[in-house]
């Protein structure tokens, strides 16, 4: 029953012209038959035809009714409206171009940003049924509430004791010197338990996963990532069973993982995607490290029947069980009992850890780009309003010849939608281009496991956006058209000044909205710019120019004795120092901006505010003239010398902030410090120098106290970062460093070769990304607002030509008129600024996490934005104002 009308409508629509012909034929048949009947009754032909038509009734009206009856009218009229709308747009190409471009920019920018949000925030992690993956963390209630990762021996305990996971995967991030076919390479490896791949729901594309036996210590098998397989073996098919060398030990390749498999993800512990995977193989020492060394990550897959909220309760029991095992292990190993050591466990969705930190930034961008679209819509609404007023006569004529108000409203709606979808279509093109630009600049902390694509969700999003935009900016002309009495415009000579003050006020309100939104965006962008400047200007504490760094990890198998390690570094530094282009070469366990280990220490004579409080600092062991090479300035005392060795007094250099905090107002030189709590048995170290503070974490992180100890005093550190200062471009030193290293050991892999400038730019990359996007949006907003101001004033000047002419005829000068129009523009801008500042004060709170050393109410930023807007507003008002000032009163008065 229901589908008959549908079918008939469809048929009617598809064969519209045929139906039209048939209808004509049918009606003609009727008329002719009737006329013939009349003629048979003796009426003359002419008269018969006339009467037939007369008695039939108004043929066009009947045709219209027939069309309506068969249900195509709506579409017919729609097509008519569309054609009409398109014709109107073609007639005013300038207006159309501005409106369509404005919308294209708005919708395109939104689509592009949404495609990133879609790929990052809305898509599941790239594992099978990834929403059921949970991370397990351990909590040490004695130290504080924040969760740690997991202690190695606990992985198998969690696996055994829990009731909520169908599988428990565990891994630890590791690095190896890799030697296969090509050049030695430093690779990131995960040591994984045998269940991890199952838990993630991934299988090797070639070969197999690890067996539970291989999980035990000493099994030298390896699974390659797709990338490493391509890079090192050129994708060779028969590599299973071949061996590669990891830290100079042979490992047999047993599998290759799929190309799509990225693990671990950014945001997870040391989130660097692994190049290869080896079995977990906990050594005897690592197994004895229970309740310590929380460097292992545990991933559990929820049983289908378990709800995430049930996990923590079960983990509490697991933690108790683990603690119990600790006691058993401790007594077996004749270690001291665990005492008041307490252990808790919590879980969180894996997704939260990976995606959570990105949310504020992406939401900020989405919000900002939404503002841009809003401004674009207001602009177009404004333009449409002006046009609508210019079309009063047309409206009046249409109403007079019988169009309903509904038809007029629909005409506006159809035109609005036509604009919106043309803009949206062009916006998609723009979005593709922006998306490509974004993909290149995407900072590394945004996981790119799903390509940023314009998939159906993104397309749906922009479709909805265009629809909403179309509705939004059609509303005003529609409201206006359904209220206005058009009759006067027919009677009038057509100067079209019948637009009431209301109408003018609505458009002024539009400009106010635009200005207000622009202020908010500009303030946001301004705050980010200020933060970025602050970050770049922070005293990083070292001189990055011309410094190249690399990391060296000597494999313990080959460098089994301290003397071998020591002589390697001695020879390496010697070679480097004499290499062409190198001014200085040294080493350290940690480099600035790349993090480091925190150590607990006791400063002589310092009373912590809390008796149990631990003093913590970053600690680096440095080789040679590292401080000089890195350009870290000496403030007091001396640098280390050749004389500082294992046999002399043990010495230490501290950072300025450490000296100030622990020995305030005293001479730090000669003060002593030791590792561990006050009762530790470690020897005292004597401070011989104070150096400047260095940013050890990110540039925008706090500066921590830092200590340096000479390599010679401790001896034998197989892992060092080396730093060389060149005379010129440090990147060109890479070859020198490589050949120096390979001259000593052909198999040794150099890791993380980069200049300090690269380190800095990587550390600011995410900030730069946010900043460049937000400022582009703000700039776009400003341009749109300027167009808005200009359009409103230009239009109003045209409309007021007559009035201006009268004023000038009565003695007003050009300057007066100029001031009049400029004043009008500035007034509207000022109101917009007031609202914008209020809005910005409310909204910038959400930016706080992205700011650095700048208040969200930073007065200079607000002041600069205000100034900018006033300047832009004057500039946008100036052209119309000048035009007004040049009005010739004689011409104006004649102007009708």
């Amino acid at each position: 029953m229901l589908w008959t009308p549908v079918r008939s409508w469809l048929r009617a629509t598809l064969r519209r012209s045929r139906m039209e012909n048939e209808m004509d034929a049918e009606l003609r048949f009727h008329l002719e038959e009737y006329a013939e009947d009349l003629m048979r009754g003796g009426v003359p032909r002419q008269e018969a035809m006339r009467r037939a038509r007369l008695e039939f009734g108004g043929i066009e009206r009947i045709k219209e009714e027939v069309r309506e009856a068969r249900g195509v009218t709506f579409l017919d009229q729609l097509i008519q409206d569309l054609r009409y709308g398109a014709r109107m747009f073609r007639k005013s190409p300038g207006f159309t171009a501005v409106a369509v471009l404005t919308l294209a920019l708005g919708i395109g920018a939104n689509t592009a940003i949404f495609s990133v949000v879609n790929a990052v925030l809305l898509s599941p992690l790239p594992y099978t049924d990834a929403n059921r993956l949970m991370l397990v963390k351990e909590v040490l209630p004695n130290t504080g509430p924040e969760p740690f990762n997991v202690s190695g021996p606990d992985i198998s305990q969690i696996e055994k004791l829990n009731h909520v996971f169908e599988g428990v995967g565990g891994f630890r991030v590791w690095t190896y010197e890799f030697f296969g076919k090509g050049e030695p390479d430093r690779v990131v490896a995960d040591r994984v338990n045998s269940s991890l791949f199952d838990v993630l729901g991934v299988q090797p594309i070639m070969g197999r996963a690890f067996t539970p036996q291989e999980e035990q210590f000493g099994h030298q098998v390896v699974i390659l990532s797709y990338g490493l397989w391509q890079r090192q073996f050129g994708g060779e098919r028969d590599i299973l069973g071949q061996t590669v060398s990891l830290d100079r030990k042979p490992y047999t390749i047993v599998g290759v993982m799929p190309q799509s498999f990225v693990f671990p993800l950014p945001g997870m512990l040391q989130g660097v995607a692994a190049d290869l995977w080896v079995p977990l193989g906990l050594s005897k020492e690592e197994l004895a490290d229970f309740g310590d060394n929380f460097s292992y990550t545990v991933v559990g897959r929820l049983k289908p029947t378990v709800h995430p909220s049930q996990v923590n309760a079960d983990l509490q029991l697991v933690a108790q069980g683990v603690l119990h095992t600790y006691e058993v292990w401790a007594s077996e190993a004749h270690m001291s009992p665990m005492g008041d050591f307490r252990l808790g466990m919590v879980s969180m969705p894996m997704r939260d850890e990976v995606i959570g930190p990105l949310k504020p930034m992406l939401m900020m961008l989405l919000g900002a780009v939404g503002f841009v679209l809003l401004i674009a819509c207001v602009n177009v609404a404004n333009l449409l309003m002006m046009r609508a007023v210019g079309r009063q006569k047309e409206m009046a004529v249409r109403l007079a010849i019988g169009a309903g108000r509904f038809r007029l409203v629909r005409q506006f709606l159809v035109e609005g939608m036509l604009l919106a979808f043309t803009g949206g279509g062009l916006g998609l093109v723009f979005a593709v281009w922006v998306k490509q630009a974004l993909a290149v600049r995407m900072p590394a902390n945004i996981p790119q496991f799903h390509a940023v694509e314009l998939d159906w969700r993104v397309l749906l999003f922009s479709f909805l956006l265009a629809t909403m935009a179309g509705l939004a900016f059609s509303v005003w002309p529609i409201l206006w058209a359904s209220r206005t009495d058009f009759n006067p415009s027919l009677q009038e000579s057509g100067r079209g000044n019948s637009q009431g003050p209301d109408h003018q006020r609505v458009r002024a309100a539009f400009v106010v909205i635009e200005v207000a939104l622009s202020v908010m965006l500009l303030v946001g962008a301004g705050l980010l710019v200020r933060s970025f400047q602050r970050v770049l200007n922070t005293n990083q504490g070292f001189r990055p120019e011309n410094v190249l760094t690399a990391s060296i990890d000597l494999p313990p198998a080959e460098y089994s004795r301290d003397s071998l390690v020591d002589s390697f570094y001695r020879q390496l530094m010697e070679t480097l120092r004499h290499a062409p282009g190198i001014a200085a070469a040294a080493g350290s366990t940690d480099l600035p901006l790349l993090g480091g280990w925190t150590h607990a220490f006791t400063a002589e004579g310092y009373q912590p505010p809390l008796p149990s409080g631990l003093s913590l600092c970053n600690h680096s062991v440095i080789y040679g003239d590292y401080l000089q090479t890195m350009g870290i300035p000496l403030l007091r005392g001396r640098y280390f010398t050749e004389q500082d060795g294992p046999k002399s007094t043990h010495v230490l250099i501290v950072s300025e902030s450490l000296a100030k905090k622990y020995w305030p107002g005293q001479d730090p030189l000669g003060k002593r410090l030791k590792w561990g709590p006050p009762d530790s048995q470690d020897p005292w170290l004597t401070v011989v120098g104070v150096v400047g503070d260095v940013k050890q974490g990110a540039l925008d992180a706090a500066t921590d106290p830092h200590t340096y100890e000479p390599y010679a005093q401790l001896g034998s550190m197989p892992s060092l970062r080396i730093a060389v200062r060149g005379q010129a471009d440090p990147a060109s030193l890479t070859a020198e460093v490589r050949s120096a290293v390979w001259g000593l050991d052909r198999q040794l892999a150099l890791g993380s070769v980069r200049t300090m400038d690269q380190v800095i730019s990587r550390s600011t990359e995410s900030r730069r990304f946010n900043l460049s996007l937000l400022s582009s949006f703000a700039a776009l907003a400003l341009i749109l607002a300027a167009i808005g101001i200009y359009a409103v004033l230009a239009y109003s000047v045209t409309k007021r030509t007559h009035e201006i002419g009268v004023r000038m005829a009565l003695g007003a000068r050009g300057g007066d008129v100029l001031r009049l129009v400029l004043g009008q523009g500035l007034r509207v801008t000022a109101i917009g600024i007031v609202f914008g500042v209020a809005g910005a004060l409310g909204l910038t709170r959400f930016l706080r996490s992205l700011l650095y050393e700048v208040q969200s109410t930073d007065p200079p930023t607000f002041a600069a934005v205000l100034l900018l807007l006033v300047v832009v507003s004057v500039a946008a008002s100036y052209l119309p104002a000048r035009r007004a000032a040049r009005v010739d009163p004689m011409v104006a008065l004649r102007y009708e």
Partner: protein
Amino acid sequence: MDKQLDLLQGTLDMLILKAVSLGPLHGYGVLLRIQQISKDRLEIQQGSLYPALYRLEHQGWISSEWGESENKRKAKYYRLTAAGKRRLQTEAEKWNRMADLIAGILGTKPEEV
């Protein structure tokens, strides 16, 4: 009765259904058939037939096809569908009930109240 009656609102559809239920007809034929049955006592504006015919076809109560008229011209013929037959039946029943009811009410004498 000399004077022609205006068609009651909504009854044209029923009359058309009745007319074509007696055999396929073209639009002009429907008009003639109704006039014939009503003995010319109904005033039907000729043109108003067509929107009604299209509406009924759109509802699926009648179907149409092109054929040849008595004097060998192309004409569009309408016939009743099964759904139309049911529709005519219910409409007729409804109409008769209503007519009885109205007649009953109008025929009421004062003493019956």
